């Protein structure tokens, strides 16, 4: 049940983001000062912000920003982390394995939010740098998951057979190990995706994510902060969007994990 609820929730926001490319109730950046800070109405479904911009339209385009940042950050994590994890597993116990593992531990020791803030202030606040900052911390996560899954595979008979047949470690990793850790990676990818959305919102909230006029959920919340007394609904909708998306992705991840590995269902 969680799987379906998660898929529907996540699907709604992906659909909203895609739809925003061709249609939004109002142009998202169109200001109308006469209509500022209106509560939800038939014309403006979710009301308007302090410049009279349509909140629903901003939310839809904001979904685009959040999803894009999180997807690319997961891509960076997988792109670098999976090969490192495969390499570490293939050379288990060697100094390469040790360096990769200790390197991961080291990255985990850094306060990720502080480093993300540092990175965005070094290279300037922008969506691209937010992606980089979030993506770097995804690398050891995927390396660890890949290594963990791969190591148990390396002891199996069909991998030994492949070695006896003369295949090298790299080829075995790609041909036999990778397809068998793919389900682990999909599950972890979903979790990192939702964490990425939270991280992007946090960075945008302190002004270090996507820059105006690109709408982003985190910045909508930051803008609403000073208006909390006047128009609390402005703080409500972007937050709900974040919660529902993250909730959907987490439920989806948990559901996929149970689906792919029924053994976990009994342990849970």
């Amino acid at each position, binding site marked *: 049940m969680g799987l379906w609820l998660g898929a529907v929730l996540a699907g709604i926001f992906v659909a909203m983001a895609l739809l925003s490319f061709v249609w939004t109730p109002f142009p998202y950046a169109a200001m109308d000062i006469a209509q500022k800070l209106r509560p939800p109405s038939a014309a403006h479904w979710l009301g308007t912000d302090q410049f009279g911009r349509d909140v629903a339209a901003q939310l839809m385009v904001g979904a685009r920003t959040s999803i894009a940042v999180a997807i690319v950050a997961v891509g960076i994590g997988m792109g670098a982390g999976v090969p490192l994890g495969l390499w570490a597993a293939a050379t288990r116990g060697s100094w390469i394995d040790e360096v990769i593992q*200790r390197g991961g531990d080291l990255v985990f020791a*850094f306060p990720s*939010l502080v480093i993300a803030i*540092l990175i965005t*202030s070094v290279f300037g606040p922008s969506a691209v740098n937010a992606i980089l900052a979030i993506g770097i911390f995804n690398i050891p996560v995927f390396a660890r998951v890949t290594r963990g899954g791969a190591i148990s595979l390396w002891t199996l008979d069909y991998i030994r057979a492949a070695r006896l047949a003369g295949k090298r470690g790299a080829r075995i990793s790609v041909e036999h190990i990778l397809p068998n850790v793919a389900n682990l990676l999909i599950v972890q990818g979903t979790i990192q995706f939702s964490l990425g959305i939270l991280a992007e919102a946090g960075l945008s909230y302190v002004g270090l994510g996507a820059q105006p006029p690109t709408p982003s959920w985190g910045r909508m919340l930051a803008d609403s902060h000073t208006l*909390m007394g006047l128009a609390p609904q402005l703080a409500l909708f972007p937050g709900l969007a*974040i919660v529902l998306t*993250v*909730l959907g992705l987490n439920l989806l991840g948990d559901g996929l994990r149970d689906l792919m590995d029924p053994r976990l269902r009994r342990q849970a």
Partner: protein
Amino acid sequence: MPRYLLSRLGSLVLSLVVASVVIFVVVQVIPGDPATFMMGLNATPDTVEALRHSLGLTGPLPLRYLHWVGGMLTGDLGTSYTYRVPVAGLVLQRLQVSLPLTVYAMVLSSLLAFPAGMLAAARRGRGADLAVMGATQLGVAVPNFWFAMLLVIVFALRLRWLPAGGFPGWGGGLWPGLRGLTLPAVALALPQAAILTRVMRSALIETLSQDFIRTARAKGLSQGQAVRRHGLRNALIPVLTILGLQFSFLLAGAIIIENVFYLPGLGRLIFQGITQRDLIVVQSVVMLLVAAVIVVNFAVELAYALVDPRLRR
């Protein structure tokens, strides 16, 4: 054991060295020269150069690195560029906010998570378990700064029970200080509690399936007695590990919450250090936090090895 200890100790020192080099290098590449930043647009190159010299920003990089690390080892964290006071003093001052806030948040999250986790484990698969697990799903999905804003709207702006921000300090007694930290602590505690509840639940379930629980039940203890006397203590190991990690992360991880509530904590010190190009503050405080995490991890690993000889490989 001595050999194991020596190799762990070696990797501890190596981690600290690598971390310090990484932090030093990253801070060096931050664009914007602190001296130029401080002197403003009308400064002559000579005065900027003089300031750079007095800030210790001249000289070869490796030498400056060694100077910084040497200072850190003797408790000298450098002198803040903007405040012109020792960084160590600033850190101590900010810890008076961050430390109570962190402890407050952890106490709240433990008070919530321990009973909730125990309840879920005891009623596994039934209504109470599903309700608790559903709540934790929601808890990890809520961004803490958004939760903080909602708390402000309800408890500060509408009900006027608690201040919306700022920190009165501890000078006026314990109560005003605690009042100022209550909403931030609740906001920080919620996601932590969700994670802690899950860890507590799965650790308890794991423990309850062990043979010694069955033995305890067989010798006549009720399920509740078995959980309290034998299950809880064993389940606490992973829970304490998570608590330890959450502690070191909360100290700095409160950056955004401190911004929401205008609290002069450690996170805000780093954030202001970055925006004001007070790089020595950033460098030293980040190093301090990273070192804390590395040392805590080391201690945890060591404690495990002491308890479980199989881990001493």
